[in-house]
């Protein structure tokens, strides 16, 4: 009981900090995922236009390699390039976001029934119209589930960004570990979990909502 009141006092005292760290966390996650979406989704669309598989296996291979670099190593490699702070963290997380986004978008578009495409072509749809009116809407659930998955794990990985001076909820966890302060560790962890769950819920809601209407 005593611990709970202590924790409440701690929260009262520290909530501006906690909010600030949460804000930083969201900025890092948001920038990484949005950048990832722009690059990965457009790349995936271009890849589906190629007949032979060389370009796509090359891109997937590359994205796969980024995925396999241990996150600490990736951050360490980016420091000489971008220094410390938010930028190396965003770039690292952006690289991690590529593979799932690329893969989901690509297979979503590829999964579209070729008969439908053929019918559209017969009706005189241009390539762009086919993409915009048929392929993308049909691939939407795949793409959205890719974004959802990516956002959730990027939220948890962003805690690592604290070691390169990017801020975020990881700051609370690392400072808590260093100072024997379990409240800080607990707050950092729980906030990251809540963010991840909320993102999952919101993105899940968006993807469901649209598919029912269509």
């Amino acid at each position, binding site marked *: 009981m005593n611990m709970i009141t202590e924790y409440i006092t701690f929260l009262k005292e520290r909530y501006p900090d906690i909010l600030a760290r949460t804000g930083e966390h969201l900025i890092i996650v948001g920038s990484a995922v949005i950048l990832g979406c722009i690059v990965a989704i457009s790349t995936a669309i271009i890849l589906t236009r190629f007949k032979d598989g060389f370009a796509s296996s090359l891109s997937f291979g590359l994205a796969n390699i980024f995925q396999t670099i241990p996150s600490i190593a990736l951050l360490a490699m980016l420091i000489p390039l971008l220094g*410390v*702070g938010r930028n190396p963290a965003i770039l690292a997380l952006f690289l991690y976001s590529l593979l799932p986004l690329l893969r989901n978008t690509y297979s979503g578009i590829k999964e579209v029934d070729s008969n439908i495409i053929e019918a559209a072509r017969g009706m005189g749809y241009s390539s762009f119209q086919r993409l915009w009116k048929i392929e993308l809407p049909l691939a939407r659930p795949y793409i959205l589930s890719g974004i959802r998955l990516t956002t959730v794990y990027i939220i948890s990985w962003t805690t690592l960004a604290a070691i*390169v001076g990017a801020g975020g909820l990881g700051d609370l966890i*690392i400072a808590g570990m*260093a*100072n024997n302060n379990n409240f800080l560790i607990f707050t950092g962890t729980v906030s990251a979990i809540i963010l991840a769950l909320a993102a999952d819920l919101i993105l899940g809601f968006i993807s469901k909502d649209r598919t029912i209407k269509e």
Partner: protein
Amino acid sequence: MQKASRLMLAVSFVSIFLLSACNPKEDTINIGAATYTETKIMAAVYKELIEDRTDIQVDITPDLLSTSLILKALDRGDLDMSLMYSGMIYNNFFPVKTTTDREEVLSQAKKGFNKYYDMKWFDPLGFENTYALTVREDLAKQRGLEKISDLKKSEENMKFGVDSSWMERPTDGYPAFKKAYGVTFKRTYPMDVNLVYEAAASKKMDVVLAYSTDPRLLQYNLKTLKDDRKFFPPYDASILARNDTLKKHPELTEILNTLTGKIDEKTMTSLNYQVDIEHRSERDVAREYLVQQGLLDDKEES
């Protein structure tokens, strides 16, 4: 084929025998070290000393993130000893009186760790690794910075890179610092302490909080500002060891006392320099130091 497989069998038997011969529970002690070089060098120094003078085998567990993590591992018995700094008593481990008096901090460390953790805090080795507020030499000249209170004029547009663990320190962390000096920086960037030196040198940060014995202060030509209000407590380096380990191996106490008062800041910085800047291994640097001191025979063990 036959021969090869028989050989393999023999090799595996021998290795199983060897593995079981060095029983880890009986004669092994484990030294913990933090993420920065100095603690690793000192761990290597003690490993060489102990293995040279006893039959005990010494393992080193490096790169532990923080002193409180090391202390937890010591408390559980995962580690037997580690290098510690007297000022770390202000880390919420046990009740302490706030003071910056060297002797008083030391005696609180000795008493506290004995009473609350059943560990022995040895006499200091002779060097201090305290926090050092540093700036680039050119910035110091340009703004006339000599001591920390000089920052008062220009801190509002300064970026401050710090060790993540320092931000939350209850008595000598950032909140207390702001109060003591009346200095609040434009923004703080907590990060791994090993990154602050280059961050300052490459102008990503204007002011950084560094460790005073780190050779990168010399490498990057960083100027340490004088702690003119005596804000930081002393951080004298000592060995902290579990009492039950010392009881089990009574010969250890004497060995752990060999270096008491022998290593000054200059020596430590130069040892750090050899590892951090010249990229030599901690073990080589440790051995060479001990040989120079006449504490170890020159010949390499087989």
